């Protein structure tokens, strides 16, 4: 095949896919950045260039800072706990434990259920008075709790759902990672008299580092992307105590119709994701043990 022909083929292979990719990812991303320097056009007042005004509003918006710190807390709690749990799950499911099929089934179950439906069920779980958690608490002699209804606990209630939803999904990747490790390594260590704890921390865990990198990048993205449970469980309340960044964007854009502010918030979210992803890559990549 000559070179010109092959370039024509490449063009026709790439064009349809790239048309969609560019129109719904790259152009919107660039437009988000551009529009964050314009005001929201309302009625007869068209949007106009305002420089860094939106960013100034954002800087002085105490709600934004609360939402921002909510999301950081959310990520810092949900990511490590769900990764640790998923690793434990994978080790259990990969061992000769009784009832493996049931364990695997129940750990993975939340992954196939829609977060919105899951949120409904958990809402019922948390309901003050007759919800299961409250019933157990009152049986043990604790006072009635309104987990989602109070500012101190609402975010924690939402985080529990996030962990529950994610851990089983990450388990799959650890399971794949574990199955790729040669049993010879473990046997050799056992002959040398190493105990299980030592084998895990010195052999298994280091060999799983590529999986940990992959899972943690995914976990970061998910902790900024998943807000379905918030829509159905708390609507970000009470008083923004459980609002995450994307929910705040959604609210600004589609409840208050302040698209300029929503795009400014989106820029912050995109930048945050890029910085974390790049940082993670550089920090963890140095520690990755490639086989």
């Amino acid at each position, binding site marked *: *095949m000559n070179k010109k022909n092959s370039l024509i*083929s*490449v063009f026709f*292979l*790439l064009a*349809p*896919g*790239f048309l*969609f*990719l560019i*129109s*719904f*990812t790259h152009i*919107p*991303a660039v*437009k988000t950045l551009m529009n964050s320097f314009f005001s929201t056009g309302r009625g007869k007042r068209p949007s106009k260039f305002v420089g860094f005004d939106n960013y100034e509003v954002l800087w002085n918006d105490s709600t934004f800072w609360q939402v921002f710190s909510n999301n950081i807390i959310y990520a810092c709690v949900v990511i490590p706990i769900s990764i640790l749990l998923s690793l*434990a*799950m994978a080790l*259990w499911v990969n061992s000769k*434990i009784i*009832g493996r099929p*049931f364990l*695997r089934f*129940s*750990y*993975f179950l*939340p*992954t*196939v*259920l*829609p*977060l*919105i*439906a*899951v949120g*409904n*069920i*958990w809402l*019922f*779980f948390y*309901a003050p008075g007759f919800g*299961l958690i409250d*019933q157990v608490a009152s049986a043990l002699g604790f006072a009635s709790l309104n987990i989602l209804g109070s500012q101190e606990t609402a975010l924690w209630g939402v985080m529990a759902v996030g962990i*529950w939803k994610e851990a089983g*999904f990450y388990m799959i*990747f650890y*399971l*794949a990672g574990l199955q*790729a490790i040669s049993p010879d390594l473990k046997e050799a260590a056992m002959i040398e008299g190493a105990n299980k704890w030592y084998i895990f921390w010195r052999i298994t865990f280091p060999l799983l580092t590529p999986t940990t990198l*992959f899972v943690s990048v995914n976990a970061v*993205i998910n902790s*900024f992307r998943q807000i*379905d449970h918030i829509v*159905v469980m708390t609507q970000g309340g009470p008083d923004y105590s459980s609002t995450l960044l*994307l929910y705040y964007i*959604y609210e600004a854009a589609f409840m208050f119709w302040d698209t300029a502010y929503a*795009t400014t918030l989106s820029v912050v979210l*995109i930048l945050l*994701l*890029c910085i974390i992803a790049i940082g993670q890559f550089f920090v963890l990549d140095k520690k990755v043990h490639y086989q």
Partner: protein
Amino acid sequence: MRVFLDLLSERLHTIGAWLLALIWVLPLLYAVWAAIHPIEYEANFDITAPLTTYNFINAWSQAPFARYLVNTVMMTSMIVICQFTLCTFVAFAFARFEFPFKNFLFALVLLQLLIMPDILIVENYKTIRFLGIMDTILAIGLPYMASGFGIFLLRQTFMSIPKELDDAAKIDGAGVLRIIWNVYIPLSVPTFVAYGLVSVSFHWNNFLWPLIITNSVETRPLTVGLSIFSMSEAGVEWATISAGTLMTTAPLFIAFLIFQRQFIASFMTAGIK
């Protein structure tokens, strides 16, 4: 002593694993309990409580779930078919051709793994409004048609196929499309199955974008329908909400029960690549 300690640690592991598994299924069991019993028993766990189908019938009559199901099926199949087609073409170009700016273009593809359409809701909403296709099933699907994840996954698979096979096909005079169709697709079936399952469960469960873009019974998928049903001002009972929740998740849940192994294996292949 060592044997005793080993046995003890094994027992503790078993107990821990089972406890976690029980916590993990508890919410679903709770929903099942509430859905199949009369409302008086929704928080009263009495084994002898009478069973009922009332909640399911009630939920079914209060919202057009059948229509929502049709919408979800149409939307999901449209997205998966388009993703398969577009991603196969792009992945094949990256796997088998050399061309200018190849690395740059591939970086653009990978960028979508980080900046997903879910985050760009504001600008994508404007695009859909500009195209004049608000509140259509097509609009729900458009931002997801070309997926960076799918392109990456298929490219990895295509690159592992020996090149001699397409050389043989070329000698027989087959064009690019014929080679893709006759050589690459048949040899990549497991990847397509894996990607298909991952994609179906993602889009079946997707909520925020469809919520923004749809506004009528004729276009709403199950997830949006369910949220409207359960958040209605009328104050729907918990038992009815549980029944509705179970009904909307049932198709995917049953598929998962039957194809559990394939599901997990698929998510695994999709993750490793």
